[in-house]
């Protein structure tokens, strides 16, 4: 089943009198259960594409169907509902609420989904357990390491059981070792049947996925299966 179908998407930013073509003409399909890396140099339009796929932004031109529904015609509220229920974001800079503890950060999407308090606390706790942070649920972001923060962010992305997880350079702010642990976690999540789109500019990170879409100057350059996918060591997580 197609989760995502985009056809001839373009995104043009108006900067002063100049037009910046962040995306020129992009078409792609992503199916349920895929692990896709979007690869490209800095400025190639990866984040722009991810924001559109995540319903944070709308394309200037083109068609976007999410689970067969035309997203381009949705209202702000409908987009918010899709982001809330169907999409889990993981950002390079974690983007946690700094004054709230891990538990509150993770339960926040469930608050917006209208889940009753005891149920959502339970779900948030389980999600934190899932990412190996059972003993950190009442820690605030500044009391956690970078890797732990990214795990909280991943737990927040997973807690609503979204149709797709979008990760924009999730290891970009982490050292190699911790980055590997996070990639191991993504692998685990993938193996449990989740759909993941991973944005990166590093070949080595992209090779964790089973499919790589290479993008340059707002155009898809190549779209290929990874023959010999890199499977990270699972036990890395325990050394966190």
């Amino acid at each position, binding site marked *: 089943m197609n989760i995502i179908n985009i056809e001839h998407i373009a995104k043009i930013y108006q900067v002063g009198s100049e037009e910046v073509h962040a995306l020129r003409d992009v078409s792609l399909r992503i199916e349920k259960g895929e692990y896709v890396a979007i690869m490209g140099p800095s400025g190639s339009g990866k984040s722009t594409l991810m*924001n559109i796929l*995540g319903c*944070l*932004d709308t394309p200037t031109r083109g068609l976007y169907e999410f689970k067969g529904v035309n997203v381009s015609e949705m209202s*702000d*509220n409908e987009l*918010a*509902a899709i*982001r*809330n*229920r169907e999409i889990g*974001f993981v*950002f390079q800079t974690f*983007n*946690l*609420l700094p*004054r*709230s503890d891990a538990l*509150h950060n993770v339960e*926040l*999407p469930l*608050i*917006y*989904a*209208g889940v*009753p308090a005891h149920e959502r606390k339970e779900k948030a706790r389980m999600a934190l357990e899932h990412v190996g942070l059972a003993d950190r649920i009442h820690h605030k972001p500044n009391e956690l390491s970078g890797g732990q923060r990214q795990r909280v962010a991943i737990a*927040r992305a997973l807690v*609503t059981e979204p149709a797709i997880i979008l990760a924009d350079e999730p290891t970009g702010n982490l050292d190699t070792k911790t980055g590997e642990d996070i990639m191991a976690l993504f692998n685990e999540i993938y193996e449990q049947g989740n759909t993941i789109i991973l944005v990166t500019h590093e070949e080595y990170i992209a090779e964790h996925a089973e499919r790589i879409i290479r993008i340059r100057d707002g155009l898809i350059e190549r779209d290929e299966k990874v023959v010999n996918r890199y499977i990270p060591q699972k036990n890395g997580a325990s050394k966190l």
Partner: protein
Amino acid sequence: MKEFLYELKEGLLISLRAIGANKARSVLTTLGIIIGVTSVVLMSTAINGIDNAFQNGVASLGSDNLYIDKWEWFNNDTPWWELRNRRNLTVEDYERYKELAKIPLAVAPTIWSFQNIRYKNRIVESIIIQGTNHEYIKTTNLTFKEGRFFNELESNSGRNVVVLGSEIAKNLFPNGYAVGEYVRIKGHKFKVVGILDEQGSWVMGNFNPDKQVFLPLQNIYKYFQSADFRSITINVRAKNSLMVEATKEEAIGIMRRVRGLKYNEPDDFSINQQEGLLNTINQTVGVIQIAGLFITGLALFVGAIGIMNIMFVSVKERTKEIGIRKAIGAKRRTILSQFITEAAIICMIGGTIGLIIALILSLVVNQFLPTSVQIDTIILAIVISIATGVVSGFAPAYTAAKLDPVEALRYE
């Protein structure tokens, strides 16, 4: 409905978190609201107090009363010198009026004198001594704590008897038991025959019956001042409020006759009414109200601007937070209500602090001006503070709600 309550509850919790994170700023922000609410509560409390006292005053004197006097009490239609040049009203005028008047319920002459009053080593200085007759009590609603008013015999024969207002009695006889004792006025002994109940009509100043004493009219002329020193006043009580106008018409006719006025001569007396007093008091209350409204409005306005300002700063500072919330599914409406709720809570906290300050201050004020804080005043204060929060929080909240999520997430 359930969804709304859920959102409200979660909105409140989120707002409380945000306020908790900026305690000092939140409290400072509320200063304007604190001042506004304090003044709302104090003002309406004071106005209540004045109003009550006035109602008591009118009630104790009787609202269906007319006062025939040389002086015009409230309206200043007639020039002062003209009033001054009028002949004094005399006891004879009173007697002839009483004889001719058919419709009043009761009629009594009064004349006053400033004197000191003592009992043993206790003294109350410069009080109003009212000289009148036994009919006087029927022209008022005064009630007795102890004893009685002087009777017809005591009145006609000019006995040295006296009735004390409650405050005078309290000062001279702190332990009670005044009836039967003798007080001295200008060296003359008077036997106390009655003590009035407290009337609480302090607005009326020296005319407050609590601060007066009453004795037979002849004694005023006999001991304190000559008959031509001051005009008397004739207190007239109409049968009921519907009869006030008729009683007044009759009084004008009779008095013109008594005073021997020709048809083309103007009245050389005035018929005064409580209404005049009412107008004066209402004017005073009105001035206080306007001043109060002005101070309150100004404080609340300043408060509202402060809240708005701080909320704009808060929205700016928390742009990234708003971006995160939107990314994970907060709707515009959710963000809007989050920030409005936050402003409303800050204001409500300010309002509560203001209310507490006002309650404490009103205890202090209570020493001078008997008041009580009404429950509707409290509700009003809370409603006003929440409303201020909602109004001043709207614009910043709206700005937050319509932020573009991608831009907001990129904000550092």
